[in-house]
Each structure stands twice: as structure tokens, then as C-alpha cells.
């Protein structure tokens, strides 16, 4: 640790067993310019106050655990360097638009359900036997969906989205982008099945294209773009159903299996 410089962290504290309202607690933390906000929180937990509660694991921006509001911005705390805030205090809160479990930990269950809803898996009846080798997919076909497959489920976009904040049912940027990811995968045949969910009112049309999800996304997924494309695709799908009410697209086997259990 370099000399004796310090930085102040103001942590959002809330304990479901004892508190009815949250409060902020300040901690002086040694300042190291290589440290990220997460390091500072870990230092507090290790050496000052073991009751501080937060999630983290990889510390390299890929597991998606450590999203929090840092001075009001949704951030991966393992990618937010103290040096970009020093010497001013850093205020850390749990991601907004989610219920708070405890301190910096939010309830993710809603998202986990929404993710399941968009059927984020390959749907097709004619599954090849592995002895036939891999499905062919050209680099150009891969590029069609690759960007949307980069989502680490960090939930920063949900915290940046005003629609998520106001409509609980809204599937939200990441879930919709992942649905779109499979719709664009040349190996998939489940588009119409998936679209059924995505087309439902709360889902996609709830998006007013504020676009902040794409601004905060640390992995450049561009969920806002994905949703607009999905809307266009959805309009086509509507039209298709209108002109040929039966047989628009194929039904996959996977989903019906899942639903039965």
C-alpha cells in the first residue's frame, strides 16, 4: 500500500432482520491507485467490519456478480478504479430497480425467471446426431448474434432502464437481448415460439428506446439495439401470422418438454 493516503467509502447499509430503513456508513480505506472499488469493499469486510455484505467472485469483469451503484452510476465494482474518484468520497449502493436483500446485495430472482421466459436455448426438432459432426455456421452467421451472446448477466442495464423501474413485468434489456441472440442464431428454429413471449405487451413494446442500457453495458452487448431489431422482427412475425395464420415457423420440441416437468 502506498504511503498513508486514504479515501472514504460510503456504503449503503440495510439489514432485513433489524432495519426498516437503510443508512449510509462511512469507512476510511487506504488508497492504492491499483485498487478497484471492490478491493476497497473487501478490505473493509476483511479488516474493519465483517458484516458488510456484497457479492463478488472473479475480479476480472466476467462473472457478473459485483454490479453496484457507484456514485449513482451502475458499475462493475471490479472494473471501477478508485483512482477515477480520488480524492473524493465514493458512495456505493445496491443496484437500483431491484429489491435490496441486504446491504449491497439485491434480489435477482425476477431476472432469473425472465431469462427462463425468453427460452434462451437452441430449439429445433431435427437435432443431428453427434456422429454427423458440428452444425456448419459461417463466421458471417456467427457475427449476426455474437455480440448479444456476450452478456454476463450483470444487471447494470436493468438499473439504467426507467421502464424496468416502472413496470415490473417488463422482461428487460438483458433477457430480451438474449432472446434475440437465439433468434439470430443460424442453428435455431425456435424463433416463432420465442417471439410469442417476446411479443407479449409488457415484454418488448414496453421499451421506449431510452438507450441507457447500452450506455452502461460493460460488455458492449447493445441490448437497446437488440430490442429494436427484435421489434422489427416481431412486426414481421405479426404480419406473417396475419397472412398465414397457420404454420408460421416451426414449433420446437425442447420447450414442451421443459414445460411438462
Amino acid at each position, binding site marked *: 500500500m502506498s504511503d498513508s493516503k486514504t479515501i472514504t467509502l460510503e456504503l449503503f447499509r440495510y439489514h432485513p432482520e433489524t432495519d426498516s430503513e437503510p443508512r449510509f456508513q462511512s469507512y476510511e480505506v487506504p488508497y492504492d491507485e491499483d485498487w478497484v472499488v471492490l478491493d476497497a469493499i473487501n478490505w473493509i469486510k476483511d479488516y474493519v467490519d465483517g458484516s458488510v455484505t456484497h457479492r463478488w467472485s472473479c475480479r476480472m469483469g466476467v462473472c457478473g456478480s459485483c454490479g453496484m451503484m457507484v456514485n449513482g452510476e451502475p458499475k462493475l465494482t471490479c472494473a471501477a478504479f478508485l483512482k477515477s474518484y480520488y480524492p473524493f468520497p465514493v458512495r456505493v449502493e445496491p443496484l437500483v430497480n431491484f429489491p435490496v436483500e441486504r446491504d449491497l446485495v439485491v434480489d435477482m430472482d425476477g431476472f432469473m425467471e425472465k431469462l427462463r421466459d425468453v427460452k434462451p436455448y437452441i430449439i429445433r426438432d431435427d437435432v443431428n446426431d453427434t456422429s454427423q459432426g458440428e452444425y456448419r455456421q459461417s463466421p458471417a452467421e456467427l457475427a449476426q448474434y455474437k455480440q448479444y451472446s456476450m452478456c454476463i448477466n450483470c444487471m447494470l442495464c436493468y438499473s439504467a432502464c426507467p421502464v424496468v423501474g416502472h413496470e415490473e413485468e417488463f422482461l428487460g434489456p438483458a433477457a430480451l437481448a438474449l432472446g434475440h441472440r437465439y433468434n439470430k442464431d443460424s442453428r435455431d428454429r425456435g424463433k416463432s415460439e420465442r417471439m410469442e413471449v417476446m411479443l407479449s405487451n409488457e415484454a418488448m413494446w414496453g421499451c421506449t*428506446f431510452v438507450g441507457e442500457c447500452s450506455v452502461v453495458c460493460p460488455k458492449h452487448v447493445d441490448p437497446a439495439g437488440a430490442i429494436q431489431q427484435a421489434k422489427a422482427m416481431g412486426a414481421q412475425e405479426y404480419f406473417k401470422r396475419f397472412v398465414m395464420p397457420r404454420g408460421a415457423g416451426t414449433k420446437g420440441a425442447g420447450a414442451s418438454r421443459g414445460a411438462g416437468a
Partner: protein
Amino acid sequence: MSGQYHRSHSRAWFLERPGYIRFMIRELTSFFVAAYLVVLILTLGRAAAGEAALAEWLQALSGTGWMVAHGVALVMAVWHAVTWFKAVPQAMPIFIGEKKLDAPVAAVLMGYGPWLTVTAGVVWWAVR
């Protein structure tokens, strides 16, 4: 679990992030675009009613108040168009093989390019 803490939303949520403000402005500009459309439709109506009616209407539109309104509407429409052109590459990505066209290039190709071409055409037609 009842112990969870739910944060409430401020009614002025749209002031919370610069991006939200930009969004609100974008929505606002569409009001001006719509209002100008109404003016255009009225103009067409006048034109249908005969040359004299149109001349009278155009005369009215050249008053100072209307000129200011036109100016404002123009700024708003341009702003609105710019936000659209920014969005177009996101909503309609163009791929050349496995490479996605860079957003600025796509915006020029699908937005600014056609826009300027049409505008130039109109200007040419008007001053001809």
C-alpha cells in the same frame, strides 16, 4: 421474505441521468415535428381550396410569430432526425461478411446521406 427493502421511484426520474434528459428532449421534439406536420396538412388544404386561399395563408405564415415558430420547429426536427440517424445503425445493423459496418458509416449511409440528397434535390427544385 418480507425483509427486503424496496426503493421508491422519484417522480422526476427523468432528471436522474443525462441520458434520460436526452430521451425526454427527443420525445419532446417529436411534438414539434407533429405540430409542423399539422401546419403542412393545413397548407395542403389551403392549396386545394384555391390559389387565393393559399396566398392568404402563406401571407399569414410569414408573420414574425410564425417565423419564430418555423425556426423552432426546424431546430427540433433536425434534432429529432439526428437522434434517429444515431439509432438507425443500432436498429438495423449492416453486415459486410462478418464485419458490422461502423455506426458513423452506417449513419451516413442510411441517414445523413439520403437526407442530404433529398434536401439538395428539394432545394434545387425550389430555386430552379
